[in-house]
């Protein structure tokens, strides 16, 4: 497996920048997603109100997370679901593998779940002797390729149709083609066979409703519906932050999530699952298990700035808007969660030392904050995390330079002199290579704004 590490972000990014084909794919995808999001948001005149409301709901949930979780668990259990609590990834995997082995399961079908990517559940299930099949088309592609996802909602965004065609020919025996419909129907046929044979279906959760004990999962393909309907056992895995108070709150979130993610008014399918089946329905699993995962989340509650990370609804809009993600893609981040939200979540989940470069993988331009449907102030979070990494980061020369800069900026005379000096020095002294390696430095204008102003 070709997994990069967060610790080597700079090297990963440099390699990604040299990959012309990757950058082409990223450019197409992020700009298309970005345009669609913009159009969809413009279609709702109360978009800003919705964002404000969504954030207020999330803030309320997070401030009373213990209470809402208990309410959710009580209601889900009273309707026949079984709830499990997992402090960390290992505990979650142990619970899930235990459930599967106790029931002699051999085949597990999975629908897309970032949370199970976070816990590396597939490795654990395979080690326990299960065959694990990802059923979302994008996830299926990268599972066949042995790669991690590179985008929260479009996991195989980094691959071209030619590469996928070759992969399907090699792995599935498909006659060579780069026709997307043909590839899709090949995957459909292969996966139907697995759905029919599966003992356990594992899904993620988009929203868990405290008031009713309902889990809501959104999708376009239909594989979540199959995963949660056909196998005898359904296991849903969710971070503890996924709970929302009321059923009616879905009105806000189901408007924001699809529009921000894919630009759709609504995704094709929403599944609302409340406990186990009851007559007259005779379709659906006999057992519904819900695994609540902490894995570092409760720690983020300890400060209002870090707490906002838990408001994220995993739409992926910040990835598409980010000038860094647009150039380097998801793998360079070396973490399950890429892009701006990944740069703030990963150091908090994995430990700041393991991902110390990620909070610097941003120009702090604020595009992520602008598109975030729950108004997470990602630049503020990045700065907060930079502060935690090292309060006195920077070389001695850098500190000296900033000290001098501060002196110059508060004195009109020194400021004027610096302009004159800068014009001369720029011609004789080369500016730091680190700056000019990837970009040009424009020569300073021969006349300053002050000069122009006084000449007027």
């Amino acid at each position, binding site marked *: 497996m070709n997994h990069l590490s967060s610790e080597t972000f700079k090297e990963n990014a440099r390699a990604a920048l040299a990959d012309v084909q990757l950058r082409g794919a990223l450019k197409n995808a992020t700009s298309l997603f970005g345009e669609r999001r913009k159009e969809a948001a413009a279609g709702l005149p*109360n978009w800003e109100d919705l964002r404000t409301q969504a954030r207020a709901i999330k803030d309320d949930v997070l401030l009373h997370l213990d209470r809402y979780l208990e309410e959710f668990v009580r209601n889900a259990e009273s309707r026949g679901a079984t709830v499990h609590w997992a402090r960390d990834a290992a505990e979650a995997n142990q619970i899930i593998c235990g459930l599967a082995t106790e029931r002699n399961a051999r085949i597990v079908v999975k629908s897309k779940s970032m949370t199970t990517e976070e816990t590396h559940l597939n490795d654990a299930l395979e080690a326990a002797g299960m065959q694990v099949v990802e059923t979302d088309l994008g996830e299926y592609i990268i599972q066949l390729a042995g790669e991690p996802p590179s985008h929260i909602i479009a996991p195989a965004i980094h*691959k071209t*149709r030619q590469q996928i065609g070759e992969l399907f020919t090699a792995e599935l025996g498909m006659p060579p083609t780069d026709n997307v419909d043909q590839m899709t129907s090949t995957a459909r046929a292969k996966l139907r066979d697995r759905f029919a044979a599966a003992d356990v279906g594992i899904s993620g959760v988009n929203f868990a409703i405290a008031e009713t004990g309902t889990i809501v999962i959104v999708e376009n393909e239909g594989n979540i*519906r199959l995963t949660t309907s056909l196998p005898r056992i359904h296991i849903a895995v969710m971070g503890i932050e996924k709970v929302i108070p009321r059923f009616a709150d879905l009105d806000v979130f189901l408007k924001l999530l699809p529009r921000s993610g894919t630009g759709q*008014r609504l995704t094709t399918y*929403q599944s609302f699952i409340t406990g186990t089946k009851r007559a007259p329905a005779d379709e*659906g699993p006999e057992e519904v298990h819900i695994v609540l995962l902490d894995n570092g989340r409760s720690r983020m509650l300890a*400060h209002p700035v870090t707490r906002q990370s838990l408001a994220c609804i995993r739409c992926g809009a910040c990835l598409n808007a980010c000038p860094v993600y647009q150039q380097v893609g998801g793998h360079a981040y070396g973490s399950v969660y890429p892009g701006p939200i990944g740069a703030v979540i990963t150091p908090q989940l994995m430990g700041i030392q393991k991902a110390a470069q990620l909070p610097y993988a941003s120009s702090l331009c604020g595009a992520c904050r602008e598109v975030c449907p729950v108004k997470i102030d990602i630049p503020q979070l990045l700065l907060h995390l930079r502060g935690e990494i090292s309060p006195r980061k920077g070389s001695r020369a850098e500190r000296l330079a900033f000290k001098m800069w501060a002196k110059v900026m508060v004195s009109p005379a020194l400021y004027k002199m610096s302009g004159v000096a800068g014009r001369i020095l720029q011609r004789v002294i080369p500016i730091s290579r680190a700056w000019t390696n990837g970009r040009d430095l424009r020569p300073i204008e021969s006349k300053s704004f002050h000069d122009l102003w006084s000449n007027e």
Partner: protein
Amino acid sequence: MNNSARESILSSIRTHLAASPPVDAHPVNPVNPVILSQEDPVTRFKESVESVSGHCIITTDTADVLSRIITDLKARRIANSDNPPNAHDIFGYEVGISTAQAGIAETGTLVLDSACERHRLVSLVPPVHIAIINASAIVETLGDALTLLQKKEISPAITFITGPSRTADIELTLAIGVHGPQELYVIVDGSK
């Protein structure tokens, strides 16, 4: 079950929240309702279904429309949510017919409720799904549909369907009918 995990997560939540500096509470402003259209909901529903690549027929003779669609499709193996095969036998069928308990005009969404539909997979597994809905069951907005669902105890499984199954996972190229149907017909029964 592991009670200690539950206790330790809840106590970690409480401890960390207690340690947090206070924040100014955000005032929650109710969202301004948006009047999106003056059109009647049934017409809008049809437009919305068509905008997501579905077919929509408004009729007073549902039986006739249904038989014409099936004849045109030359379908022989037809599953139906009231008289269904075993869930695992559904794979061999060409057409699945269901009703829908509500429709949402602004999005073209069908709402299937497990309290009424014994087998919702007939709407997913066969390559063609035909849904029949009463015109009077069509509401304006997503919010209206959510309110409607809460009028009684919530059913174990509710499914919202907006158009046929789709994916854009390969180069963001739209492909219709990945795990679900390639074609969706919605018959709106306006006879009542």
